[in-house]
């Protein structure tokens, strides 16, 4: 192919008076942007390779580097933006589907940012979370329709055992990210952090590396259409089994782990050839209808002797409320709704950016629908896809979620700068890679600390905020949309979200 017509996306600025030619940038770049002929020689850059991951910038000891978006002065045009032009040129050069990683980067409204939280003033007091107990413990799993008690003397006993409930010490879990899409070190950091936090991590669909089984008590294992790693032990060691029907970043299409990341270890875990593309197609080939989902749920329950709650994860699509209702009635204990801003290791950009609906409206619609049908208590709802901060967690819970998954946020805690090149396997931050030179960049011990810090910080913020609302137990927040007010939302949006506009009273 002759010279590419796509200009470099980033501009590398090196302040030569600050550059000590130490070569840190050269050695840290996973994309071979910087080069040096000899130690302490002149450093040169190939900007075409730069993905803007900022690894070199962060590591440069003298702050001599700056990576800036390369602002191409194509003529301003509302339709034909630089991005559109470059995509066309790229496709004209390759004839391929444009891949993207991480979440949707289109400028859709973020409903979380248009919802304001409430606080107490005078008539009911705020609670000081520093002194008073603030409870965020959350249980996942279906609930008994009612509690029956038996009196014996002055005390009472439970008459029927409850369905299995999974205790979370904080309503924040780590979302499904497979070994293969992310490195083993990252898997380990997530697993260990979940264990320390008393919450759960999700293996994703890549199977369970043998070294991580020690964290199984805090794991959700996924059964996806590719069925990687699914054996009896896999199901038995897990706390929860999740059937992956869809993913918010790429509704309607399946998983695709490019061969670049299929090292022997990943291949061994998935039981497929090394170097191959691991494909888990959109459909489970044994599920082409809702009763087939029930059949798979039942199969998993049979195999594990009804000891594991079954979660079903679906992408938030237009009809998600009805779909969720079907899933609840198919016997799932947990429904995970993954919004369109959820991350992924690789997805066609057109799918990532154009399909699905945001998690805020999806969770609101699902919660409302299940309540209307009187089956909200038969399932727990987990919201995921675009949860960025504690406020998002709070708002998701107000809208009706029991708990949330964080994926991208967890990776950001480990260093991810959202460059969106996970599918290349060259992640400079050592996260979305299997290259041993790169993957060692995530020291699990350090990673655990960062993840634990993040979730603890969010949890503190959650306590702080619900305290401000005068609430000391998170269950009082769940579905409590009176604590939300819409700002700048139209009537239809307010109706879908089930919230009142700011300024309207209780």
């Amino acid at each position, binding site marked *: 192919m002759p010279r590419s017509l796509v200009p470099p996306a980033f501009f590398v600025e090196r302040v030569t008076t600050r550059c000590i030619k130490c070569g840190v940038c050269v050695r840290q770049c996973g994309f071979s942007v910087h080069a040096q002929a000899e130690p302490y020689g002149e450093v040169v850059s190939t900007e075409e390779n730069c993905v803007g991951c900022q690894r070199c910038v962060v590591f440069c000891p003298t702050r001599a580097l700056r990576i800036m978006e390369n602002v191409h002065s194509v003529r301003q045009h509302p339709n034909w933006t630089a991005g559109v032009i470059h995509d066309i040129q790229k496709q004209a050069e390759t004839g391929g589907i444009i891949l993207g990683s991480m979440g949707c980067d289109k400028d859709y409204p973020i409903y979380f940012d248009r919802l304001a939280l409430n606080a*107490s003033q*005078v*008539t*009911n*007091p705020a*609670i000081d979370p520093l002194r*008073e*107990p603030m*409870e965020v*413990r959350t*249980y996942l799993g279906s*609930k*008994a329709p*009612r*509690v*029956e*008690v038996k*009196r014996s003397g002055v*005390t*009472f*006993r*439970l008459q029927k*055992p*409850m369905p299995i*409930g999974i205790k979370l010490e904080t309503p924040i879990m780590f979302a499904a990210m497979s070994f293969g899409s992310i490195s083993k070190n990252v898997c380990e950091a997530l697993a260990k952090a979940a264990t320390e936090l008393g919450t759960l991590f999700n293996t994703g669909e890549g199977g369970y590396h043998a070294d991580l089984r020690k964290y199984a008590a805090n794991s959700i294992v996924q059964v996806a259409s590719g069925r990687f790693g699914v054996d009896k032990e896999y199901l038995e060691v897990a706390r929860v089994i999740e059937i992956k029907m869809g993913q918010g970043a790429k509704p309607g299409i399946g998983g695709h782990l490019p061969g670049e990341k299929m090292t022997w270890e990943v291949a061994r875990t998935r039981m497929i050839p090394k170097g191959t593309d691991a494909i888990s197609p959109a459909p489970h080939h044994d599920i082409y209808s809702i009763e087939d989902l029930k059949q798979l749920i039942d199969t998993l329950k049979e195999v594990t002797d009804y000891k594991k709650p079954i979660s079903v994860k679906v992408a938030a699509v237009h009809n998600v409320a009805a779909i969720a209702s079907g899933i609840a009635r198919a016997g799932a204990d947990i429904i995970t709704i993954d919004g369109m801003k959820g991350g992924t290791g690789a997805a066609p950009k057109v799918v990532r950016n154009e399909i699905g609906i945001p998690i805020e409206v999806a969770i609101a619609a699902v919660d409302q629908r299940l*309540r*209307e049908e*009187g089956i*909200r*208590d038969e399932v727990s709802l987990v919201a995921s896809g675009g949860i960025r901060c504690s406020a998002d967690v709070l708002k998701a819970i*107000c809208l009706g979620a029991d708990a949330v998954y964080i994926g991208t946020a967890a990776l950001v805690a480990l260093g991810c700068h959202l460059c969106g090149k996970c599918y290349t396997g060259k992640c400079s931050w050592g996260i979305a890679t299997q290259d041993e030179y790169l993957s060692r960049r995530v020291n699990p011990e350090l990673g655990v600390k960062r993840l634990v810090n993040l979730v603890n910080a969010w949890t503190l913020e959650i306590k702080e905020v619900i305290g401000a*609302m*005068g*609430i*000391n*137990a998170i*269950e*009082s*927040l*769940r*579905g*409590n*949309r*009176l*604590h939300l007010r819409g700002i700048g939302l139209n009537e239809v949006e307010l109706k879908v979200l089930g919230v009142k506009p700011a300024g309207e*009273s*209780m």
Partner: protein
Amino acid sequence: MLEGWVRIPSGCAIAGIINQNGQAFSGEMIARAMTVMHDRSNGLGGGFAGYGIYPEMKEAYAFHVLAQDKTGISQVDELFKENFTVILKEPLPTRRTAGVAGTPFLMRYFLQPQKENADADQLVAATTLQINKHIGGTFVLSGAKNMGVFKGVGYPEDIAAFFRLDEYKGYLWTGHGRFPTNTPGWWGGAHPFSLLDVTLVHNGEISSYGANRRYLESQGYHMTLQTDSEAIAYACDFLHRRHQLPWEIIAKVFAPPHWWEIDRMPAEERELAVALRRTYGSLLMNGPFSIIVGFAGGMMALNDRLKLRSLVAAQNEEWVFVASEEAAIRAVCPEPESVWYPKGGEAVIQLVKENVECHAA
């Protein structure tokens, strides 16, 4: 805006008196207790519930109904005719009282379900909810056997005088003085709230209202008044009548032990506590409250689990008193045998003795 369309937070005074022997006493006593706490109210609401007040009609469902206009009353009449035999219909006796104005139409019905209804209570409850929801400006103050709710806009002592409480006798009375912080109240918005024989007087405000409300709505309750007190009343009905849970357990749903306490419980107790929080977490009443729940045969007083509202209890011979302030108790019982201060989440449940014939239902 009309109360019932918007949520109005409020502060309050509450009191409850029960005679364990089921001996009836005058409503004047509860009015006297409430009078002491005059300054906790602002004249925008007062009310009382009396149990055992209609001994001669104790097998019939007594309905106290208010209506803004006569069409409301006739619509109620129509509705009752569908399912009940009206034994008696009369205006609720009142007396002209300074400080009580804007009096709505107030009617009293004694009803008998027409056919041998398997669940007469359910019918009565449904009828109550239907009137409140569908007949504009009309509201059921109470609808149950051998009890009644008297409430309106005004100070409690004025409301007591207005409804001639001194002419009633019951074995259990609860009272309420209201301090809403928003627009002037509506008669229906005053406390106690009731559904069937369960009445509620409430001080404080529930921050979990939105969660409680949505849960109750998904269980078939319609919130007419948009107040947290209404939600608590319905939650009581839901847990006590529909889920058959004893009041001790209901107290644990409204004000459960903290998780750290649950974690330290013996296994059996813990299982129950966990089950209650998991199942009825949405009915946890979060935020400051003290409530007195009255029901046929007893009452329960309860504080939120952080004890953010005041509540005092006292006992003297066969009498048990609960109130926002000790002075209220001393006003009617100067030297009680014991006075105590219930802890957060620690319910005071007092039933009339079992062999005493006073139960309405």
